[in-house]
């Protein structure tokens, strides 16, 4: 790693954004234009720095007390990602918020939040990391309360506030333990010390568990996921930034501390079990949601669960790819959520099509799993050694199975099926290329894929794969069945799922009891 004062220049974007947040401005629109310049400065420095990493490897700033910059491959990807999404969101907000009495305040809060996330990503020092972590959460809290007279906004922000403070505590404790153990707050020094120690002490295992806990809380994982389905009480660009820029902080935390987590099997198991369960749970709930933004929020919970599942499997590069791809997808999905009516107007039913036969699909799933087993074994993997690889590969292929099955309805046509097959092959090829590319890019930055072979991991993987297989079959049978054809248990199951298994209502009741809003009801 190169130590260079030039690394400080990566601060240009965050500093410019902080200046926008603090300096006076004559008109809201002028301030918004300034925020756009600041965001673009961040984006340009991100691109230049990423180029430097690609050409000359990671670099870092000289360590000052509590402050330093670490710019490795992980930083490069995340910094570029958040600067890019941030720039789009800032640009979007300029016209979107025009005429709002709080437009200037909004621009300032948005700039401050974005600056905090960028500083978090740049942190080479755990104290700075913790400070930026807390600052992001506090700034976001102000954005969530942008319309502070909305009772639902307050309730959601309070739930988020409570979850965040528990997460802060976990992170602070973990950092304290690591400081004790390694004698330094610098990431580089801390990781070197860990490596030198070899086996993990109970304290380090605990620290890993605390990091995993903080990541789960930040990523809106079960059972503290409720707040994220309720923060549509604030303007759309905040949702876009939250779902595409800030929610990633949990994943980033896990990736940044990956060398520590690898030493802590319970931490990995925690990520695997909670992430895997949340991915399954939230993606089923998502199917039943009727409002576009709420549905997108459940999708985010599921996607973050999947990403943490990848972390739990030690598929670090895959998790990073997931973060990047999900961010870009979700930023667009939120900003374009007003277009859903256009989509609906174009979504007429072309023919009395039908769902594929459930048995045929079950066969397809079995074939897919068999194919994965054969292909995997032939290429030198053994299920007992690399269950993670198989789990992720099986989920990919089940997704493709679902896609292909969708194209075969009651009146199958060669055109549609062929078109679907071509698209499916392209998707699969793209998926493998991207996974391989990201793994190559992150070689040396993130630990190589770990082999999870402990009993908890094996059982969890088996259950998760079975769950996804059941879901694939369910989506082709009772979920798409028409009214009266739905079995009685599925009719009841739908009601429970649509309610998110009532977890959030219980959480609301608890929060209201502990911390009442004291505000009048709507209208």
């Amino acid at each position, binding site marked *: 790693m190169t130590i260079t004062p030039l690394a400080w220049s990566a601060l240009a974007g965050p500093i410019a954004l902080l200046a926008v947040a603090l300096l006076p401005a004559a008109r809201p629109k002028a301030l918004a234009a300034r925020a756009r310049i600041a965001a673009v400065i961040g984006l340009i420095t991100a691109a230049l720095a990423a180029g430097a990493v690609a050409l000359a490897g990671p670099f870092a700033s000289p360590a000052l007390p509590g402050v330093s910059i670490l710019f490795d491959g992980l930083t490069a990807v995340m910094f570029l990602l958040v600067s890019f999404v941030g720039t*789009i969101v800032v640009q979007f907000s300029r016209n979107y918020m*025009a005429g709002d009495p709080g437009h200037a305040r909004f621009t300032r809060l948005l700039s401050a939040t974005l600056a905090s996330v960028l500083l978090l990503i740049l942190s080479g020092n755990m104290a700075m990391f913790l400070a930026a972590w807390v600052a992001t959460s506090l700034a976001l809290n102000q954005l969530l309360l942008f*319309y502070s007279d909305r*009772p639902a906004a307050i309730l959601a922000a309070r739930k988020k506030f409570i979850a965040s403070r528990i997460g802060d505590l976990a992170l602070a404790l973990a950092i304290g333990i690591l400081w004790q153990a390694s004698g330094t707050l610098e990431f580089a020094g801390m990781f070197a010390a860990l490596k030198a120690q070899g086996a993990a002490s109970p304290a380090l295992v605990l620290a890993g568990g605390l990091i995993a806990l903080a990541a789960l809380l930040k990523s809106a994982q079960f059972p503290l996921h409720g707040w994220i*389905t309720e*923060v549509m*009480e604030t303007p759309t660009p905040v949702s876009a930034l939250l779902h595409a820029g800030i929610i990633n902080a949990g994943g980033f935390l896990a990736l940044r501390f990956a060398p520590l987590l690898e030493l802590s099997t319970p931490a990995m198991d925690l990520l695997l079990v909670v992430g895997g369960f949340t*991915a399954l749970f939230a993606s089923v709930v*998502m*199917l039943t*949601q*009727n409002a*576009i*933004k709420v549905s997108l929020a459940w999708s985010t919970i599921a996607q973050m669960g999947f990403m943490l599942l990848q972390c739990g499997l030690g598929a670090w590069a895959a998790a990073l790819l997931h973060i990047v*791809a999900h961010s*870009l*997808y979700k*930023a667009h999905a939120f*900003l*374009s*959520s*007003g*277009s859903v*009516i*256009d*989509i*609906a*107007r*174009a*979504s007429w*039913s*072309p023919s009395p099509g039908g769902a594929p036969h459930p048995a045929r699909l079950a066969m397809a799933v079995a074939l897919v799993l068999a194919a994965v087993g054969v292909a995997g074994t032939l290429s030198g993997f053994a299920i007992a050694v690399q269950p993670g690889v198989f789990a992720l590969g099986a*989920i*990919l292929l*089940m*997704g493709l199975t*679902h*896609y292909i099955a*969708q*194209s075969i*309805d009651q009146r199958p*046509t060669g*055109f549609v099926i062929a078109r679907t097959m071509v698209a499916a092959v392209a998707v699969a090829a*793209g998926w493998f290329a991207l996974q391989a590319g990201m793994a190559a890019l992150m070689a040396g930055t993130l630990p190589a894929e770990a082999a999870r072979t402990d009993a908890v991991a094996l059982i969890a993987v088996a259950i998760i794969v079975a769950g996804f297989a059941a*879901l694939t079959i369910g*989506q082709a049978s009772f979920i*798409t069945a*028409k*009214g009266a054809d*739905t079995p009685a248990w599925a*009719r009841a199951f*739908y*009601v*429970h799922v649509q*309610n998110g298994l*009532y977890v959030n209502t*219980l959480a609301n009741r608890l929060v209201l009891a502990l911390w009442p809003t004291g505000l009048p*009801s*709507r*209208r």
Partner: protein
Amino acid sequence: MMTETAPAPTSSAAAPPAAPLPGPLDMAIATACQRIAPLWPLKHFVAVNPYLGFSGQSFAATAATLRRVAKVDMLMARPFYREALAAGIITDAHIAQALARAPANAPIPADVALARAALARDPAERARSGPAVVATIAEVLDKLSAGDRQASRTAFMVDEISRWCAAYFDEGQASWQMPQRGAGPWAAWRETMVHDRNAEAMGIKDFRRIVAGLPADPVAAIGLIVEAIGIPTSAQTDYLHRALFDIGGWAAYVRYLVWDNGLYGRPDNRLVELLAIRMAWGYALFRQRTDAQFQAAWAAEMQQAAQLPDDAGLSADPDLAIDLVFQEAYEIAWQAQLLGKLARDEAAAQPFAIPARRGRKPLQAAFCIDVRSEVYRRALEQVVPGGETIGFAGFFGYPIEYVPIGRTSGGAHCPVLLTPAFTITEMVNGADPALETEVLGLRLLRRRAAKAWKSFKQSAVSSFTYVEALGLAFAPKLVSDALGLTRTVSDPNTDGLDAAVIGKLGPRLDPVTVGGRMTGLNADQRLSQAEAVLRAMSLTSDFARLVLLAGHGSTTANNPHASGLDCGACGGHTGEANARIAADILNDPAVRIGLRSRGIHIPDDCWFLGAMHDTTTDQISIFDRDRVPPALRADVAELDGWLDRASALTRRERARLLDLDAPDGDIDAQVLRRSRDWAQVRPEWGLAGNGAFIAAPRHRTAGIDLGGRSFLHSYDWTQDNGFGVLTLIMTAPMVVASWINLQYYGSTVNNKVWGAGNKVLHNVVGTLGVLEGNAGDLKTGLAWQSVHDGEKLLHEPLRLNVFIEAPLDAMTAVIMASQTVRELVDHQWIHLWAIGDDGQVSHRYHRDGEWTAL
């Protein structure tokens, strides 16, 4: 009472009650449901008068009823009138006139000075109690629990009912639809409530058991609840209305479904079933509390509710009487301005002169009566000296169902008061049957492939693969969407068609049978429609060489309310198809021969052009250019030049209200960019500002800058034998204009209640409407951004002023013959004025057929 648990409902036993004679409760239910105005879905969003259900009572009495029953205001808050007074917009003379217009028994100040003093005082905190004030159980519980650590019961109940309705009525958002939705709402709700533990999770005890104990018949359930909670008979209508008002958005959507079925004569009981759901919720809350405190509070409320209201006399609400005087004064002030403009002295200098020219007119151009057309027509008249513009409802007299390629049914392109009389299919111009079949087949296949892709994107399992494989592709898409280079999603009208085909799409007029339905128009239908349309436009002679028939539509991106900016007369669709059909038929040689025998001679060198006015960009596109006879090609080229100049002029005028980044820069480019900006919440102002409807020959208003605030209907009563056209104008376009006007009025005076709230919080639900934020009731009306520019209101809250040039007797006869019209004018929902033979406004309509000379 209801203590034992009834068996779970097994089937929709919602058979109509055996007794055919409506009792008082049935009447109360019917009246309460009738008070809800319908809400059209976003796919074809049209303006609705939110006070439609109150047309049987006056504007003032409705304001009183709504304050008493729903506790909402229907007028601006006092500071608005105070500012108008301070700014000199309202003067003492206006106040004096308003006092004079007030009903004799109203509790109003004796003179202007007292009125001004009354306005300066803040109104008393709105009476939460008082005679005939209606409270709901949830409201009483909320009041009792002030400071209590309980969530607002009202908000929770509204959220829960709204979420259930979203699942039940979902038009395609969720991949997994509610399996129970095959049954009627009441039966489906009862079935889901067998399983649903959410209310109990929130602490509402025994919710499932209480619901299961209610009768399977919704009316019987309502009856049981009304009796159990002890609503006095005299207050039943108000209570039931209040109950529906709490979930007013969903009630309005269901009212639309009922309305739509009603147009086709199909019975629909779903609004009553929704009412039963809402009542059951109240009942479950009622059963929670048996303590003395609640019982006493509830008994007191019921005692108040039992007293008889006096909404018409305003005796219980003197504050409202004051506000009504100032609303009237505010409207009088605007009327005075408008009357001044209309009463221009022909000899005096005009804002701009329209030079008269002898001989044949160089152009006739018909536009929709929409207020946005007024600006364009004025510009076009300036550019084309001697050219004539005509105002007519933008569906050009053709109530059609327009079926796009590949589909079996389509949208109704006509005012929502009508049902389509013709079915027209879309076709590819100049394509032989083989090519048509190919285009059709390809679109169907692409649609099926797209469905599979959408399922891949959104299913529970494959969404993870989708994100990892395709997420990165959204990086370039984010950039190009942000720069306005691409559309967020493809245009629904042309989705699945090749670019080469898109330019050739058009309506098919020739009668053919498609899917068992007769489409197109036969010779007789064409002739009778053509004649009716020309007579209704008062366009029966002096045809120019080119007659432009311009429908209108809008171009916006990422806007869930986009169809609300399209043509209301075309049922929330663009007017393209209707204008093209109207033009096509008038160019049909057989039709022209037929018209001659009916006394309308269209010269052989006259050609009708179907066109569309894009109200966001003010571009006009002419269709079917290839059919223009060669002799007229040069004329069309000249017309293109005129239209370019008129469009530029119109954009310049509109730009003043658009808050452009560079007001002195390239306005055309900025207006165009706005129409593609996915972040733009005010792409255009729609019909904001509307305040007048004028039915008269255009020369009465030509040359007057009406500021894009008037509906202009061309009408020459001297050509109207038997006043059939007058009847049509007063019963259809005038009513629709009043709907639009009152929609804007409601969204302006109380956006929380009758508007759609803040656009930046909009959350499209069920692909049919919007929520504000993550939950709450469905929103109706217009977003705040559609009436307010951030600094000031762009729409002034004014009731529509209708000016008609016709004999008083003829208008009185129409009023007396039509209940709808009579209620509108007699109950002061619009102001009606008569224009005399000299072109001056001569009379103001009072009521009961009486006119007051000015």
